[in-house]
């Protein structure tokens, strides 16, 4: 039996890769034919390395119809009755079978694939989670965008009220019942019957609410409570404020919390009032 030398491992690598020159191949086959456990084990490793090299090819799939073409051709093709060795340029010479890995289980590429895929599963899960986060953020951002678009649309609509060419403006004046700091201004667009009202210093005393009224002809109609922010400022945007032929102006009363009972008419003192063009 020829003694195992390190150079045999170089030959095993070239053999597995299918790149040995004829002389080297014959030399290695002669060595293998005598049974070298070291080389046999190494061949198994190099064979797996070669499969990994093959798997580095860019992923691609043939035409799905190829499968049926192959199977049809197979059905029409008789098999060889006797064993043949085909398509293996590095196949050992006939007569001696060279075992590539007698002491370890042989491994198919499917397993290679599965092992590599399993090793990647964690990374995949991480990317999947990351992708999920990105998707959530995207959905969130989309939601914000839609919201911003709605708000912008709303702002445009109300800006149109403020900028309407025939808009009417009422500066509300403080009555003797009101405190001196109150400021209120109303802009009304007769075409859309919408109004924008701006209030400043409208923090109501404890237990009280300011209520806004439309002055319509001889009567009044409640337009709701004025709920200022912490700085006492409030902006009301109101639709269907009133018929331009009837609406004369606005008034504000100081009511118990929740407003005038029934919201029919002011029950508390009127603190501000104003008519258009006055």
């Amino acid at each position, binding site marked *: 039996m020829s003694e195992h030398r390190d*150079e045999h491992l*170089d*030959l095993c*690598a*070239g053999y597995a*890769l*299918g*790149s040995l020159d004829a002389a080297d191949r014959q030399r290695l086959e002669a060595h293998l034919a005598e049974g070298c456990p070291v080389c046999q084990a190494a061949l198994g*490793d190099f*064979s*797996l*390395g*070669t*499969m*990994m*090299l*093959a*798997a*580095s*090819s*860019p*992923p*691609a*799939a*043939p035409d*799905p119809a*190829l*499968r049926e073409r*192959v*199977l049809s*051709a*197979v059905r029409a*093709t*008789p*098999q*060889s*009755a*006797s*064993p043949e060795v*085909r*398509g*293996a*340029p590095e196949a050992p010479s006939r007569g001696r*079978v*060279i075992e*590539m890995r007698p002491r370890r*289980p*042989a*491994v*198919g*590429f*499917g*397993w*290679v*694939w599965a*092992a*590599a*895929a399993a*090793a*990647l599963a964690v990374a995949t899960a991480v990317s999947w989670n990351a992708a999920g986060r990105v998707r959530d953020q995207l959905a969130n951002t989309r939601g914000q965008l839609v919201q911003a678009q709605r708000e912008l649309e709303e702002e445009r609509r109300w800006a149109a009220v403020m900028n309407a060419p025939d808009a009417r403006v009422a500066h509300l004046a403080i009555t003797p019942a009101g405190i001196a700091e109150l400021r209120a201004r109303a802009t009304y667009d007769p075409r859309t019957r919408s109004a924008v009202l701006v209030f400043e210093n409208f923090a109501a005393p404890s237990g009280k609410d300011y209520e806004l009224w439309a002055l319509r002809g001889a009567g009044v109609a409640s337009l709701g409570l004025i709920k200022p922010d912490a700085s006492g400022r409030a902006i009301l945007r109101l639709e269907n404020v009133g018929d331009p032929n009837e609406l004369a102006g606005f008034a504000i009363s100081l009511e118990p919390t929740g407003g005038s009972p029934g919201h029919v008419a002011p029950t508390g003192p009127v603190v501000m009032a104003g008519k258009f063009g006055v």
Partner: protein
Amino acid sequence: MSQHERDLECVRRMQAGDERALAELYDRYTPLIYPVALRILRSAADAEEVVQQSWLQVWKGAAGYDPRRGTVAAWLLTVARSRALDLYRSVASRRRAEGQVDPEPLARPEDPTTSVAQRQVSERVRKALEGLAPQQRQVLEIAYFEGLSQNEVAARLNAPLGTVKSWTRQGLMRLRELLPQKEWV
């Protein structure tokens, strides 16, 4: 049943004339052999032809498969690669006779029909290849995908034959090490 045992069972069924066994192997290994054929031939039509001829050869020669010579996967890969290289050489020599140049390597767009696992494995192996010394990688790729012998590779790279041999060995071992060792116990 391990993957290898399932493969062996398929070959036994093929040897008994069961076409469904070939269909099973086709589904399992065409994702491995088609990209190799495509990379060698740079033509989808040629690669499909090679894949079809390879499966026919495997079908006809099923009785000749000997598990002691290597795994079913290695056998299938060897059949497809050598057929692809044969066709590549004949096409290349015809081109040379007609004064044409070889086509450029195919661009590598992401093929949406390939599986996620396939793309990940391929990507991982490509990254591992990028980790090899450039010469090691070049030696492996030229030898395997262009079908050059080690002498031819040495001449092409203007490197000593002994160096080409040791680069081949180191490179394949690095790729082998990508796979978990514990599975072998």
